[in-house]
């Protein structure tokens, strides 16, 4: 009797010891070598400076960045004098606008993506229809529902307000006398007629000026990169083998969420690297937005970027053709492209709802519920499979996502509206 009691007590101790080990493995900072490698790939300390942009020879010129910052905030560069890049990419909101469909002079059909960290992406916009930051910056400026303006109008405005800065960087302004105020190869009939009435030489001169505006804005946007978050401090402690310090940085729930994130929830399939995005394209079965026309995502994006007058292979690009490998080796067709969209960076994700390309989900709970249940795609084929996570696990992943919030790694001067005569 006494022996069996001792065995029983021993069993309890053994059982408790095993369970304690299991719990500490799942909720605290004990990681396998493989997991530590995965954590390191996500760590901001693993983020190199933005890759060179051979298509923009002004990309790293501080004078171009200064001019670009002014243009980014200047509402005169729009059809109604009220819209700038900063209207939808607000510096105090991580350079996005916090609403489902952005509003310029009209309403767009997509959610504004944050500008932060876009220097790392070979493709811009949700569907990747642009292949550089400068080409991207020019899209909204002639879009009828965003800035609503046109390149000849902008050329006149540069001559009127930025002649000195512009010529110091790009050389003499073209002769704009005699050119219409509004002219561009766009849908607006008046602007199109004006454009068709211009000589080929004038059109190219105006377009070059327009391109230089884009390259200046891109030089500015390159400076907007994410900074350290609580997650990064945690990884640093783990890499230093300082588990005690690590456990003070993240809570057991946040750590459990991180474990799910790099493990069974499959999040790092797309949200990988220090920016938590592979900058590729995926169909995750996101529901169609109500009251909007059908959106086939990357299927159209590839055709648009191949035909884009400002792509890497265009005469306006400073890159040599052999430097345009993304465009050259692009997957241009296939059913898998239907309704693919670019996974955004998850840095600061908790600060910038609503989510998805048309703001379909208001909260992270809705996002996680979508990934957990993996509904069929409205078009194309969803890459998701149901995760069958418990409510608690979903909460833990959300708790982890909130640890990715942190300030931008940019000088304060770049994060505010610059001073200029407006």
């Amino acid at each position: 009797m006494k022996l069996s009691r001792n065995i029983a007590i021993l069993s309890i101790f053994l059982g408790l010891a095993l369970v304690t080990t299991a719990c500490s493995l799942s909720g605290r900072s004990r990681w396998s070598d493989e997991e530590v490698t995965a954590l390191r790939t996500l760590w901001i300390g693993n983020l190199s400076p933005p890759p060179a942009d051979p298509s923009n020879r002004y990309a790293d010129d501080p004078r171009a960045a200064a001019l670009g910052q002014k243009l980014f905030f200047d509402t005169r560069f729009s059809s109604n004098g009220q819209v700038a890049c900063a209207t939808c990419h607000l510096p105090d909101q991580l350079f996005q606008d916090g609403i489902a469909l952005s509003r310029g002079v009209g309403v767009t059909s997509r959610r504004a993506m944050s500008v932060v960290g876009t220097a790392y992406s070979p493709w811009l916009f949700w569907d990747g229809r642009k292949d550089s930051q400068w080409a991207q910056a020019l899209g909204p400026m002639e879009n009828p529902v965003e800035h609503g303006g046109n390149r000849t109008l902008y050329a006149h405005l540069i001559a009127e307000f930025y002649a000195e800065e512009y010529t110091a960087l790009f050389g003499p302004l073209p002769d704009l006398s005699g050119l219409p105020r509004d002219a561009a190869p766009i849908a607006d009939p008046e602007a199109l007629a004006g454009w068709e009435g211009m000589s080929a030489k004038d059109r190219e001169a105006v377009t070059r000026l327009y391109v230089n505006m884009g390259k200046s804005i891109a030089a500015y946007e390159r400076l907007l990169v994410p900074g350290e978050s609580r997650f990064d401090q945690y990884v640093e402690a783990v890499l230093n083998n300082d588990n005690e310090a690590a456990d003070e940085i993240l809570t057991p729930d946040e750590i459990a969420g991180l474990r799910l994130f790099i493990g069974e929830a499959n999040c790092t399939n797309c949200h990988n690297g220090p920016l938590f995005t592979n900058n590729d394209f995926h169909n995750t079965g996101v529901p169609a937005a109500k009251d909007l026309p059908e959106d086939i995502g990357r299927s159209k994006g590839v055709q648009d970027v191949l035909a884009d007058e400002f792509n890497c292979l265009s005469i306006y690009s400073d890159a040599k053709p052999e430097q345009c490998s993304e465009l050259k080796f692009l997957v241009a067709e296939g059913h898998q492209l239907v309704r693919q969209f670019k996974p955004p960076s998850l840095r600061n994700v908790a600060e910038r709802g609503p989510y998805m390309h048309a703001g379909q989900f208001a909260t992270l709970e809705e996002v996680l519920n979508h990934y957990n249940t993996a509904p069929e795609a409205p078009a194309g084929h969803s890459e998701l499979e149901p995760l069958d996570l418990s409510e608690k696990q979903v909460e833990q992943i959300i708790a982890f996502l909130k640890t990715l919030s942190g300030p931008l790694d940019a000088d304060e001067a770049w994060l505010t509206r610059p001073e200029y005569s407006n």
Partner: protein
Amino acid sequence: MQESKPKSTSVRLWLWIGGIVAALVLAFAIFMVTMGMRMNAVPSDLDTSTTQRTENGVFNVSYIASTDTVPVNQMHAWTLHVETADGQPVEDAAISVDGDMPQHGHGLPTRPQVTKYLGDGDYLVEGMKFQMAGWWVMDFTITANGQTDAVRFNMRLQ
């Protein structure tokens, strides 16, 4: 009556303890098995050698990446070296390139191609990119000297 009461309480206590121990051990076993399943997602005997013989033994093929290791999310190039089974460099080969993730059922984010013959049986493969960590395969179908054969390389990317 007063004697038997503590006895039955003690039996019940032991039953409880036994049950708890069993439950704990079971929980731990499930935990370990789940961990194990996750680890075993990729075949444990995966051959990740960078030199392989083609399926029918016609060619010996090897690759070297332009980067130190094969990277995730970075465009890079491979140099593919093709030789005959008896070690002679193969010139004028026509090579088609494909790749995918066996566990995911999706392919490469790019369409890599052989863009240049570098001499001495070396071929430049440009447009290589892998968009996530995990088990990848690269397949090359090689036609030369009137013979066609295929080779597969496995990679475990981190």
